[in-house]
């Protein structure tokens, strides 16, 4: 078994309203970051996982996302696997 560090990024589905992103965008504009657009706020989940291979780690993480971490109705996710020591 190897030790992997995973990063799961969960973001609101495109097309869905993201009121938080909108509020942050407005705030950035009023702070003179006028060139900012399309602010979307998601979640970042970092974790360590013991697995046989990077692929196994990734597929476990996908399973976690589908079952618990991401809301299948409103969120998309993607996964990065690092390490393997």
């Amino acid at each position, binding site marked *: 078994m190897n030790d992997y560090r995973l990063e799961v990024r969960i973001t609101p589905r495109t097309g869905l309203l993201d*009121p*938080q992103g909108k*509020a942050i965008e407005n*705030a950035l504009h009023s*702070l003179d970051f006028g060139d900012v657009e399309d602010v979307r706020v998601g979640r970042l989940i970092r974790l360590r996982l013991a697995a046989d291979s990077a692929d196994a780690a990734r597929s476990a993480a996908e399973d976690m996302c589908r079952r618990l971490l991401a809301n299948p109705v409103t969120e998309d996710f993607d996964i990065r696997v690092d390490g393997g020591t």
Partner: protein
Amino acid sequence: MRVAIVTFPGSNCDYDCYKAINDVAGGIARFVWHRDTELGTCDAVILPGGFSYGDYLRAGAIARFSPIMDAVQRFAADGGFVLGICNGFQVLCESGMLPGALVRNRSLHFQGERVRVRVDNADTAFTRAYSPGAVLHLHIAHGQGAYVADDATLAKLEAEQRVVFRYVDEAGEPSDAGNANGSMRNIAGVINAEGNVLGLMPHPERSVEALLGSTDGLALFESLRRSVDEAVAVTDAAGRPDWEAGV
């Protein structure tokens, strides 16, 4: 006591503070819109509870950039009394007027309930009408109220007796069981070094009438009134403009 209550978009305890000041605490309150740049004449400022900017990003993070906040900072720097309640406390921390930060409750839930809070410093402008160590029944209503700060800050706050309120258990002790939301050292409210800016998560304005179940918050406003009266006696002599009553 002339109190300016700042209304941010999303504030929702502004009116409650207004009624507590005007109807019960014997003061005169007035709303100030967050876009205003002047507070007008006042003896104290309240940053009320609620969800300024929807609590988006972090509670209080966006509101602290509201135009009025410059005036609030100046007012505080001149020694004016500033009271931040719940979201107002979060705004004060975000803007650096008070140390520390307020993060998600340990329960991970919004908590709307009555808790026990001990007055750990009854020698401030905001708590002088309480007896030291008094245990109050106050309501909390927040999702991000766990107080955190680094060790050095905590040590300094303790050393300077700037932890004004703490969550306590039935025995009046700041135990883990009595810690309503997972705050470090059970901290429910802190004051700045100068003693004129107080922030607390519980809502004293919800406990000023017996009909609603508790009057334990009343002495906070009473303390503020006394402190203001003393301060005003000095400043009015200095010739500040008169208060336009009832505006």
